[in-house]
């Protein structure tokens, strides 16, 4: 299927912290949008996984946040901005296996300390900025083949 993107396609989802009933729906919708545009299956999977991990972080750790996406003919950019507690030590948080998740989060199958590493692994460009007490912004770019 030929790629059906002529100009940048933008969209946003509002994310509500603690709302596990619909957690992941924004990422699933973005995945369907990319499928409809004829994006490569492997790229869709990477974008969906990176977005889903970021979405779950907002649901688990923060009060609220926004997920913005920008799809261009040769790449997708995903920006997640949250109003959460922020990350004290980003270097530590980027280590596989490091997690500050409480027990109730682990019992749901999250908090393995793989979220941020999974986002970075699936992105071509990954940027994270965080201010304790204010929130965290994650920006990811995935290039199309």
């Amino acid at each position, binding site marked *: 299927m030929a790629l059906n993107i002529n100009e940048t396609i933008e969209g946003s989802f509002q994310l509500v912290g603690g709302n596990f009933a619909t957690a992941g729906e924004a990422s699933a919708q973005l995945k369907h949008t990319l499928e409809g545009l004829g994006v490569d299956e492997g790229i869709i999977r990477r974008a969906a996984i990176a977005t889903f991990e970021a979405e*779950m972080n907002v649901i688990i750790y923060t009060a609220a946040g926004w997920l913005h996406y920008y799809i261009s003919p040769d790449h997708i950019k995903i920006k997640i901005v949250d109003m959460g507690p922020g990350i004290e030590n980003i270097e530590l948080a980027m280590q596989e296996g490091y997690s500050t998740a409480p027990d109730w989060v682990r019992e*749901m*199958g999250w908090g393995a300390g*793989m*979220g941020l590493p999974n986002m970075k692994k699936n992105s071509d460009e990954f940027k994270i900025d965080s201010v304790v007490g204010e929130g965290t912004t994650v920006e990811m770019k995935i290039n199309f083949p």
Partner: protein
Amino acid sequence: MTLKEIAEILNAEIITDSANSDINIQSACSADMMSAVLYYHTPNSLLITGLTQPHVIRTAEIAGIKSIVFVLDKKPDAQTIELAKAKNISLLSTSYCMYTSSGRLYEAGLPGCLNK
């Protein structure tokens, strides 16, 4: 390996059978941590897990997983079943534990998602 073959190997009950039930499932992963499921992601794979909440279905959808086996006779609630139907994901339940379920399927020729 088909869903029916998997159900026979695990003596599993098929809770919901998607329209994709005749697809060839080529690999499997066993995990209770959702980030591990995402890490393993392989198309047309099977997830063996002990978690039954709706977000397991959403994780499976993102990871390209088409079928899920719940171990230790765990049964998902109505919300999880409805979501699986909507996402076209088959659900099974087996009385075997995660280790035995994985072992039986591996022995029958179903490899792991990462092949290592």
